[in-house]
């Protein structure tokens, strides 16, 4: 069982502003690895929403800032440590316009 390696873990409190994408399971606090990136957190939210078949790509905001690195790097950069529970908001990823010059 090497999935429980010596990795740092942190508690996250998952929320969304989208009423149609609320996680029904209680409680909404999870303990996750700090090595996770936006992609993995998006995968996790999809699993919690039981959307494995029809995934929605999510953007992730931690304490109001978009996550572009691993959680670990985010914490270091923002001078936070894994002892605090993080507010993690998920929101439908904005798909960049495919052809901006065609107008």
């Amino acid at each position, binding site marked *: *069982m*090497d*999935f*429980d*390696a*010596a*990795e*740092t*873990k942190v*508690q996250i*409190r998952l929320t969304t502003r989208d009423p149609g994408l609320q996680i029904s399971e*209680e*409680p*909404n*606090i*999870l*303990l*996750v*690895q700090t090595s*996770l990136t936006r992609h*993995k957190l998006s*995968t*996790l939210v999809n*699993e919690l929403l039981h959307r494995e078949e029809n995934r929605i790509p999510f953007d992730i905001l931690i304490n109001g800032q978009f996550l572009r690195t691993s959680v670990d790097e985010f914490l270091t950069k923002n001078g936070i*440590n*894994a*002892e*605090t*529970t993080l*507010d993690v908001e998920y929101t439908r990823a904005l798909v960049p316009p495919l052809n901006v010059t065609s107008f």
Partner: protein
Amino acid sequence: EAQLSLTHLDPSTIDPTSARALWLAHEASTHSLSQQLTEHLRLILAPTLATKLRGDFRTGKRLNLKRIIPYIASGYKRDKIWLRRSMPSKRSYQVMIALDNSGSMADSGASNLALKTLTLVTRSLSMLEVGQVSVVGFGDDVNVAHDFDKPFTSEAGVRVFEQFGFDAQKTNVRGLVDRSLQLFQEARQSGGGGGGQGEDLWQLMLIVSDGLCDDHQSIQRLVRKAQEERVMIVFIIIDATATAAAAAAAAPTTPAENTKTSILDLQSAVFTPEGNILRYKYMERFPFRYYLVVRDVRELPGVLAGALRQWFGEVAGSV
């Protein structure tokens, strides 16, 4: 009871005046609980009255079968072949209380209940006079806040409080168990507990923490090592959710405070190296065998006594 907030104080420690006020407040509010715990412990920790048969004597109560063949082989010269019932020997204890000094303790509101627990347990052990008490703080590393070789007076309690600020950036429980086994070894060698011989010296560690820690597998290995070295570890999990809920009912709170989760309900979600998500209840893989969850300090005398009684039933009865 004094509602002393730690938030406005020096970030790394409690200032001496507040430490004293806080210690005295906790000492007063847990006084009768301490006496209750002392009574429980007196019954549990005292040497058992039913003593063992020991060899080797020229006369006695029962034959020591292991001595019979050497007895015959020696031409009936080695005649110390009898067992006698010996008197119970005095047992002494070294009890270490390890208090979690990490930031999550302040974040979850567990810090105050933890300090109260520390007060209750140390007062109770001092009243019991069964041996030595030490206190360590842990977070990134381990800080010995009170040594085994000093008596644990009220003044010592104040000194200990001064060393806690609940702001360590990590919760290194693996490092704690590792270091404390060293400390126990050193304490045993220095002939502690007043017993002198060390033969009837019992070593007990009480970890007081919110229970959140990483690296469960390494911890499990160290817990086994502790068992081999006859160091008993009881993990006291401070679950402050009940207190938080009560506070929420009493006063309007922010949404963040309403969503406090008990560690018993906490879910882990872990990505395996293959990329699968494993979800399980955090406590299902908690690495300590003897643990108790405390939501209210009034529960402590009963549940702590229960855990120790269980341990004595399993371990002490068999040696």
